[in-house]
């Protein structure tokens, strides 16, 4: 393993890989810093640029976006009180007050170095856990894979904040998209609805790009008409110089807290579709609970910033594990990375690491190197980030949508995928408006074919349906999916009761 990792690091240090990694990280940091532009949107924008690159170059760029984006959100969170990404929401709580108290440099660099250390701890987990988990998954037959994918969809549906029923319906809608066009087992045409471009089936990337890009951009337009700018609240003369040794010591003098926050981030990252925002909020909550001075949280103390930033970067490592070991995207960013792998004809899943060790360890190396690059970019450009956030959205949004069109078109040089992009753009926006979560929908679209293939394979191997339950791993996974739905049901009920009680109190 160590030899492969060392070889990966040497490989990625070549200029041809280092450049895409650098530009990817830069794009991530900038995208992360722009309020209203998420890491998903940034990675969607970067995707078409990777088509002409070799797989490792493309994935290095995307890994850079992911790492850079997870840290980029903290600049605006600290200096403006506006989180660049949802993952930086918890950073605002203490980062912004600290900046307002006259220590913006300390606040920014606590965040940057906490991201760095948290990300590296996530990397240790990523490198250490992927191969053993993939080895376990290699023992799986079609029954186990079917049950594992069902567990992923049900967990995502249950863990979303919307109602459980809507989450499950969204997952069902995603699965429906995969039954249109052609049957993945025999390639037989089915349910084409008389539409030519549906005949070969629907590629998941234009669906993903359409759903996420439009849901977000149209949501912004709906709120601000695209005129929103932050220029008014900027302080141009802000000083960010700080003693790095002092800041690093502030973080490393809390080793157990740092480890715990990174663990929370990794754990949330491994669970599909919960996301870095939940990781940073949970870590912040944990930090408050274990602190000797919980009353100080929110007033600008370092623990709050360290908790939020270390966990949201460690989260990246966790998300990458599930995609590399099981082929299940942990979130929308890794879903796009999965698409990039597919474009290059590489199958993700348990065989990925054994069949493509150079690529897998190249990704690990890119992940590790992206962290110092991210620190370097923020060291040189944190001040410039403040200027970038003044970019008018009226200029930014159409360019992003043009890049989405190129991303969809370039998949196989046909307009069909652009039509799919438009159709699913409208659907994505409507889903958000009607309160249906997008994550289970996308996971349904990504896993639908695999669920069908494994279901048919298992029935063709042995028609006894009880095998899904009597095979221990498969049965365990199905039981876990039932439990995850029941847990979600219980949690939603509890939330409803709490809300009702709060409403009742408010009446008096």
């Amino acid at each position, binding site marked *: 393993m160590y030899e492969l990792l060392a070889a990966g690091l040497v490989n990625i240090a070549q200029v041809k890989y280092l450049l895409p990694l650098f530009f990817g990280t830069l794009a991530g940091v900038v995208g992360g810093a722009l309020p209203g532009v998420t890491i998903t949107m940034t990675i969607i924008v970067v995707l078409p640029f990777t088509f002409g690159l070799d797989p490792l170059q493309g994935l290095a760029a995307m890994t850079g976006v992911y790492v850079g984006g997870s840290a980029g959100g903290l600049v605006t969170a600290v200096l403006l009180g506006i989180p660049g990404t949802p993952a930086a929401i918890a950073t605002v709580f203490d980062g912004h007050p600290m900046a307002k108290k006259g220590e913006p440099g300390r606040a920014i660099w606590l965040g940057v170095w906490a991201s760095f250390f948290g990300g590296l701890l996530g990397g240790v987990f990523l490198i250490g856990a992927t191969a053993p988990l993939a080895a376990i998954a290699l023992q799986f037959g079609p029954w186990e894979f079917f049950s594992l994918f069902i567990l992923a969809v049900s967990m995502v549906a249950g863990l979303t904040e919307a109602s459980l029923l809507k989450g499950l319906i969204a997952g069902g809608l995603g699965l429906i998209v995969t039954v249109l066009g052609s049957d993945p087992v025999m390639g037989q045409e089915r349910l084409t609805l008389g539409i030519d471009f549906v005949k070969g089936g629907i590629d998941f990337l234009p669906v993903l790009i359409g759903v996420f890009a439009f849901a977000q951009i149209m949501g912004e337009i709906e709120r601000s008409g695209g005129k929103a700018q932050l220029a008014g609240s900027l302080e141009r003369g802000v000083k960010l110089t700080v003693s790095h040794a002092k800041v690093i010591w502030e973080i490393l003098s809390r080793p157990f807290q740092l480890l715990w926050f990174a663990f929370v981030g990794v754990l949330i990252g491994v669970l599909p579709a919960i996301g870095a925002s939940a990781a940073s909020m949970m870590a912040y909550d944990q930090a408050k609970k274990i602190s000797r001075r919980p009353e100080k949280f929110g007033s600008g103390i370092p623990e709050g910033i360290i908790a939020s930033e270390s966990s949201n970067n460690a989260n990246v490592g966790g998300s990458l594990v599930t995609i590399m070991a099981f082929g299940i995207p942990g979130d929308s960013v890794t879903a796009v990375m999965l698409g990039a792998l597919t474009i290059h004809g590489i199958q993700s899943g348990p065989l990925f690491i054994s069949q493509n060790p150079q690529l897998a360890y190249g990704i690990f190396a890119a992940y590790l190197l992206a962290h110092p690059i991210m620190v370097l970019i923020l060291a040189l450009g944190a001040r410039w980030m403040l200027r970038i956030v003044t970019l008018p959205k009226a200029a930014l949004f159409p360019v992003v949508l043009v890049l989405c069109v190129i991303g969809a078109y370039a998949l196989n040089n046909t*307009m069909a995928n652009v039509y799919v992009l438009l159709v699913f753009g409208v659907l994505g926006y409507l889903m958000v408006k*009607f309160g249906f979560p997008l994550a289970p929908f996308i996971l349904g679209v990504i896993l639908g074919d695999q669920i069908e293939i494994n279901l048919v394979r298992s029935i063709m191997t042995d028609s006894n349906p009880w095998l899904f339950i009597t095979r221990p791993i498969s049965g365990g996974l199905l039981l876990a999916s039932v439990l995850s739905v029941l847990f979600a049901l219980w949690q939603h009920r509890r939330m409803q009761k709490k809300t009702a009680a709060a409403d009742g109190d408010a009446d008096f």
Partner: protein
Amino acid sequence: MKLSRDGWAGLVVLAASLVLSGLTLELKANPLVPIGPGFYPRIVLGVTALLAALLVVTDWYAAKKAGPKVPADYAAVVVQFAVFGIYVAALPWLGFRIATFAYVAVTNALMDPPRGARQWTRAATIALASALATYFVFEHYLSVLLPRGRWTDF
């Protein structure tokens, strides 16, 4: 009792699932895979229809509560979707460069209407730069052939 938007959404999903389920009945079994191409879609559509029906029923019996009204510019969203739709439709006819220039210019102008010659020039420059820069980068460096116009051959 009246349906809220959850109920209506459920009805739409239910209707779509039932229509598609009906269409699966026309699918013929394959001799190599006896369970046939309609087996899995029927399960997925059946489960989704059931969940959608459940959403309609729960919404029907749920106590309706008006949430806080959030101001939203839906007209701007409809216009943006329409402009994007026109852009997509125009791409094969006008070609990437012309259609993209027009799309970026129009969208920019609609979102932030230019006042005076300077702002018009800025909007046109952004549109021209985006169309040409994306074309140049993708065609020349990334080997992505972007659509040529049937009418313009450009």
